[in-house]
């Protein structure tokens, strides 16, 4: 599919004047359409035997149970404990990831090395090593980290915290380094030129200006951390995900609804708080941080400076209180990290992992499943993108607070929250009631989960968009549907598409955890290999997953640049 896309785009951009970027956008649109059709065929949309009609009875039971959630005191207490465990994992993992991210971000930023050795060529510096060291941990999903760590460290909350902290740390390091590099350097240069040592110059010249963005991003990561902590629960780490899985496996739907309600509250509160804080800090959108577009205008940022510094203080206090509490609550045992037993198990596993099983038969299986996995991610993101855009408009805070508008707004928001709060593997298990195992249920599950995330991101973009074109058209008597089509949609479409391509990378990573519950692709193979303790096979599958993840990263970046 879009593998043919990379090169032409690059040449296009390099050789043609800026105006013709439109052609790039058109090319992306065409490739995307082709990719979608291909993915639909690959996931088996047109094959027979898709819907398992026998499962509708269970789906009905499931939704009927929503009206009668389990409310006994014992179960409510269990739900509360599970919620706190999930929250504590998220906080603990996040804290670790911020430590890794700050260190890694500094070491892999250009500005740090340039400040230290102004004369050295960048490529020859340890900068490259730092960058390289962060690539692999980032590409491996938290759940895989979890499964590996549990085999080395045993059953301990430490596993959940590390499994979250390591990949999150690597992602955070990448974004932190980008933020540092894009922060204006005039103050830093002035300090360096007057002979202040580099470290201190960074501390006083660069850090203060980068801090609001660093903090906003950290808070955005908290939302992700809660979602990931839940997924880690599903693979056995405890907390809400674990309890939901147990209830689902025993088909106790009433319990499930209670647990899902707790997850909705936890997720909803975090999302809300995070959005407010990002606004207060003047760095409102995720992509602005990630893509490194100019941060919210300097003037606006300065206007917010006072409220911003108070916010910072509050956040710092909250972090100082919550982090130790989280660690105390789950009580990880760090001594396990350094136990000789751990080293032995690690050595054992590494010996079994290498050399990877790259026999022709296995390689062929891997290639087939890789195509299937890629198709799952494309199909999922197409689904999520399409419905995400459609739902984002009702889910954007209406300009006029009429009762009807607020009602639609509330419903749309609640629906999106529901979609994203339920972890993708749980969606997969539900979808597996009515659709046969294979790539399709997996793709649908990832699609639904990401629909919730994308819908909200795009809704925020819509809220921040310039409303004047729509209003002008409406005042000129254009019916509101058309006013929206010509005045509203074009204002937000480029950003929406950028989000969609960005989430595509996440969809790719999530295909793995879907496989764990039996829904197709390389993840399914990985589950079978892990349950057979076939570690050399596991390594081969992981290598394939890494290749896919990088390919999708590159494609997504190229496409985003082409439509910008």
């Amino acid at each position: 599919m879009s593998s043919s896309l990379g090169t032409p785009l690059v040449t296009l951009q390099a050789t043609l004047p800026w105006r013709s970027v439109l052609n790039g956008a058109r090319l992306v649109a065409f490739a995307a359409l082709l990719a979608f059709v291909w993915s639909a065929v690959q996931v088996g949309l047109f094959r027979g035997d898709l819907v398992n009609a026998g499962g509708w009875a269970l789906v009905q039971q499931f939704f009927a149970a929503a009206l009668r959630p389990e409310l006994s005191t014992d179960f409510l207490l269990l739900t509360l404990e599970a919620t706190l465990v999930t929250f504590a994992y998220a906080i603990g993992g996040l804290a670790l990831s911020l430590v890794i991210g700050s260190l890694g971000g500094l070491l892999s930023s250009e500005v740090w090395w340039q400040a230290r050795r102004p004369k050295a060529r960048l490529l020859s510096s340890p900068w490259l090593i730092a960058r390289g060291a962060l690539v692999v941990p980032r590409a491996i999903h938290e759940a895989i980290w979890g499964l590996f760590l549990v085999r080395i460290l045993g059953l301990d909350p430490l596993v959940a915290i590390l499994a979250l902290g390591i990949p999150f740390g690597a992602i955070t390091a990448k974004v932190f380094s980008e933020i540092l590099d894009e922060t204006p350097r005039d103050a830093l240069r002035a300090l360096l030129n007057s002979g202040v040592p580099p470290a201190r110059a960074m501390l006083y010249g660069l850090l203060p200006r980068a801090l609001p963005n660093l903090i906003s991003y950290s808070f955005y990561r908290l939302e992700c951390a809660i979602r990931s902590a839940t997924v880690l629960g599903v693979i056995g780490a405890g907390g809400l995900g674990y309890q939901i899985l147990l209830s689902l496996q025993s088909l106790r739907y009433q319990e499930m609804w209670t647990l899902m309600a707790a997850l909705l509250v936890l997720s909803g509160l975090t999302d809300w708080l995070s959005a407010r804080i990002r606004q207060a800090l003047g760095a409102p959108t995720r992509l602005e941080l990630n893509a490194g577009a100019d941060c919210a205008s300097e003037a606006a940022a300065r206007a917010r400076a006072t409220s911003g510094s108070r916010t910072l203080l509050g956040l710092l206090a909250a972090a100082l209180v919550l982090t130790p509490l989280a660690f105390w609550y789950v009580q990880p045992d760090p001594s396990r990290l350094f136990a000789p037993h751990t080293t032995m198990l690690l050595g054992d596993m590494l010996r079994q992992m290498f050399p990877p099983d790259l026999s022709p038969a296995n390689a062929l299986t891997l290639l087939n499943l890789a195509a299937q996995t890629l198709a799952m991610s494309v199909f999922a993101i197409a689904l999520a993108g399409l419905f995400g855009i459609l739902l984002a408009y009702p889910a954007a805070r209406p300009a006029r607070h009429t009762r009807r508008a607020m009602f639609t707004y509330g419903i749309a928001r609640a629906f999106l929250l529901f979609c994203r709060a339920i972890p993708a593997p749980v969606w997969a298990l539900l979808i597996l009631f009515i659709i046969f195992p294979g790539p399709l249920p997996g793709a649908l599950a990832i699609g639904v989960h990401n629909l919730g995330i994308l819908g909200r991101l795009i809704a925020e973009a819509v809220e921040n968009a310039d409303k004047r074109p729509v209003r002008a058209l409406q005042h000129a008597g254009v019916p509101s549907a058309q006013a929206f089509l010509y005045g509203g949609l074009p204002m937000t479409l480029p950003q929406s598409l950028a989000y969609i391509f960005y989430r595509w990378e996440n969809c790719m990573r999530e295909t793995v955890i879907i496989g764990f519950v039996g829904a197709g692709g390389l993840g399914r193979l990985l589950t079978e290999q892990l349950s057979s303790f076939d570690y050399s096979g596991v390594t081969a599958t992981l290598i394939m997953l890494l290749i896919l993840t990088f390919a999708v990263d590159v494609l997504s970046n190229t496409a985003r640049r082409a439509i910008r």
Partner: protein
Amino acid sequence: MFRSSKTYWALALFASVVLAACTAPPAARPQASASAFVISAIPDQDPERLNRLYGKLSDYLKAQLGVEVIYKPVTDYGAVVNAFRTGDVDMAWFGGLTGVQARLQVEGAQAIIQRDIDENFHSVFIANTASGIQPFEDISGLTALKGRTFTFGSESSTSGRLMPQFFMSQAGVALSDLKGEPGFSGSHDKTIKLVEAGAYEAGALNEQVWKARVAAGEVDTSKVIVIWRTPAYYDYHWIVRPDVEQKFGAGFIEQVKKAFLSLDAANPAHKEILDLFGAQKFIETKNENYANIETIARQIGKIK
């Protein structure tokens, strides 16, 4: 957005109070201490049922052995094997396949005890009555599954996957002959429920779980019936790590065996445990009993 920092302070305070106040460090999570004998089991049935069963068993073993006994629940079959390997678990209740996997990874581990039923264990194939699949006597009857939807239990289950798949292949039924891909329900209980509800037309599971659920009136036998009972094979058993004797003293393994062997159906307290296990009594077993399972597992690729 917030007008003053007070809101933040309040939020931070609120969050920490919630976290701190509602729970002392949770008592529900047993901390494995060096002196405790930790047991676990493959999660082949409803988790809630397993908690009850192993709670009772832990109390009994504690009284018999005079050491602290902790039951550690886990979510999937592989996790038990792994916990046994890492030494987080001293003794575990394995199925035939997971037992072999576990022993291959822990040198010197011994299969010691099993239930009376485990030396003659059977799986049953069940079908939803609406599917029209009729019960049959001969293994060749399995061809009736061709073109039907079918679910196994867990990937690593002996009675819910390994042996059923083995007998299917003996009868010439490949997984690709089924309608759609086979499901992996995760547990025997879920297999019954899925077939009963018609989510799958047929499935295979552990005969003992089936009998227990039918006897308890939890299965609607007008909707789901047994269509075939497999020949006998060796299944579930307790495997103990070799290092327990260093931990609890020489002769500890014999003491454990004795504790199980002296469970007596005439004693009401013992009978409760035996009933939960679906057994009349426990008997001794040995590693050699599982050579056959190992061969089949290698054929199917569950052991490399």
